[in-house]
């Protein structure tokens, strides 16, 4: 029964994604180990307009994205309850279901909005564990579904769900589009838009902590320059251009500074741009290459890559006293590191036997753990709940995005239906 269910779900998942337009799509590659079984009953529809978006289907694909849940489709259910009174716990236990979600969508008192009320039940304990309510325009039902998925995830797993987050990435020119595109999409690949398009390279997208702006590098002026662009207005502004490289922008956790790399002093060094003062402060000063900065969650230090020892390694600079500490010692190529959201370690690009992998290193133990078995992996970005890593890799000669859960159990690829995707950047949680 259980095995059959997994097979069936895989089929449904594939079917669903193959016929719905999106820029990226998630295809789970690794096995699903010990998933939580949940049933999401089709929501009662109490609106006059015809239903075109089905919340239970979106919630199903959300929860199954990273292999932690298996969601029972309506075809496998013995009844389709929409109220507490209609639930027969025994039936759901028989189907191997751990949790059940029911609910309905109706018109809201607020003009043009819909209101979805839902309840999450724990089948073993035979009681409800959460009652939720999401209000949103009828056109935004995908968003409503993602919000419900976030809450379901949080109530069951105890950490925030990430289904309302976004992904920024760069699409390289293809036969269909000769331009580089800075794209933003929902984490499931839907709602993809091009924020900026240019025949010259675009690089290094970084989200502002309030999720309202993106910093990135554009070569539109013939040389690298850092731009900030608002998402709601498409308004953009270039940071003061300095001679040489202007690259690797990375927003500080409180949003008032951007760390970046400038080579105006003759070689690439770390700088901090104060957005209020519009001025640069130099952090590192070394004749080697210093690049790829990332802010620690407490804003006290910057991670960076430097070849000052002869090969690229990860270092940490204290932004107050500019003191520098080397963090990686294993191997001869460690680069583009990002702090884990809890600040207890880093994820970075590590070369072993000539192959580039994504690896993590715990600060306390110092142990390097290689997560990926793909080839030419780079640009890791971590989900704001710390559970999933998306990175750039190759499928043959094509650039694709792929992902892996922190526990290493679930692997997935996110092939782009058009173009080739690279440099993923996971948005913060705020909506």
């Amino acid at each position, binding site marked *: 029964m259980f095995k059959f269910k997994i097979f069936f779900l895989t089929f449904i998942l594939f079917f669903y994604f193959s016929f719905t337009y999106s820029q990226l799509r998630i295809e789970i590659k690794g096995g699903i180990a010990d998933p939580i079984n949940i049933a999401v009953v089709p929501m009662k529809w109490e609106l006059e307009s015809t239903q075109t978006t089905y919340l239970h289907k979106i919630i199903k694909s959300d929860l199954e994205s990273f292999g932690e849940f298996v969601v029972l489709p309506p075809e496998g259910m013995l009844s389709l309850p929409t109220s507490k009174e209609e639930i027969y716990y025994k039936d759901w236990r028989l189907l191997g279901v751990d949790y059940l979600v029911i609910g309905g969508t109706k018109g809201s008192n607020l003009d043009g909005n819909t209101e979805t009320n839902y309840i999450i039940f724990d089948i073993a304990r035979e009681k409800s564990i959460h009652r939720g309510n999401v209000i949103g325009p009828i056109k935004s*039902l995908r968003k409503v579904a993602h919000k419900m998925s976030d809450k379901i995830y949080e109530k069951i797993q105890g950490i925030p769900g990430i289904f309302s987050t976004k992904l920024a990435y760069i699409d390289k020119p293809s036969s269909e589009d*000769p331009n580089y595109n800075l794209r933003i999409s929902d984490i499931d690949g839907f709602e993809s838009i091009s924020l900026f398009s240019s025949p010259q390279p675009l690089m290094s997208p970084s989200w502002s902590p309030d999720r309202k702006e993106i910093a990135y590098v554009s070569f539109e002026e013939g*040389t690298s320059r850092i731009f900030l*662009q608002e998402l709601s207005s498409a308004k953009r502004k270039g940071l003061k251009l300095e001679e040489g*490289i202007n690259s*690797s922008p990375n927003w500080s956790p409180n949003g008032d500074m951007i760390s970046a790399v400038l080579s105006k002093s003759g070689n690439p060094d770390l700088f901090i741009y104060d957005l209020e003062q519009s001025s640069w402060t130099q952090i590192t000063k070394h004749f080697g290459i210093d690049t790829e900065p990332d802010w620690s969650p407490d804003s006290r230090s910057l991670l960076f890559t430097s070849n000052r020892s002869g090969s690229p390694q990860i270092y940490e600079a204290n932004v107050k006293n500019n003191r520098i500490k080397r963090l990686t010692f294993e191997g001869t190529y460690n680069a583009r590191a990002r702090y884990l959201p809890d600040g207890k370690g880093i994820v970075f690009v590590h070369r072993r036997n000539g192959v580039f992998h994504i690896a993590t290193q715990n600060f306390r133990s110092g142990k390097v753990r290689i997560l990926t078995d793909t080839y*030419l992996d780079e640009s890791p970005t971590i989900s704001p709940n710390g559970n999933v890593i998306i990175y750039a890799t190759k499928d043959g000669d094509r650039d694709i995005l792929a992902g892996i859960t922190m526990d290493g159990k679930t692997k997935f690829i996110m092939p782009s239906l058009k173009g080739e995707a690279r440099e993923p950047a996971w948005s913060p949680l705020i909506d």
Partner: protein
Amino acid sequence: MNITQKSLLTTIIIVLASCSSVSSDRTNDSTAISASASGAYSDSGMTSNNVLYFSYDKSDVNSEGRIKIRTLAKLINDNDLNVRVEGHCDERGTREYNLALGEKRAKTVAELLIINGVSSDKIQTVSYGEEKPIVNGSNERSWSQNRRALVKTF
């Protein structure tokens, strides 16, 4: 702000919709703004011998390259040309590190041109890192052609 600009801005806001509460179910691809830089990219320059090649993760020029640079320096001075040196890398390693490495390659070539008598104010350098490969393919054949510096007139 006139009415046309206002309505254009409104359109952009609706199309983008990513932060507002209004959002269409299946958003079509929309280009917010397009840059106006030139399109097609090529490696060609003032002579067919304007390309210098490098070893992996290295920025030093070999003896063959030094001979090329000597010829280029003479050409630049004889014709009073201004040049732009572009540094490029292969796809291996991280993008931002490669951007830095590409600059080192461009600067090495620029310094060698200066040593060979070209005035520094006639030379510009730029790095494209691994962003503009001339050959696609994840193999040494492609990589060796992509690890390059180009001397172009402008």
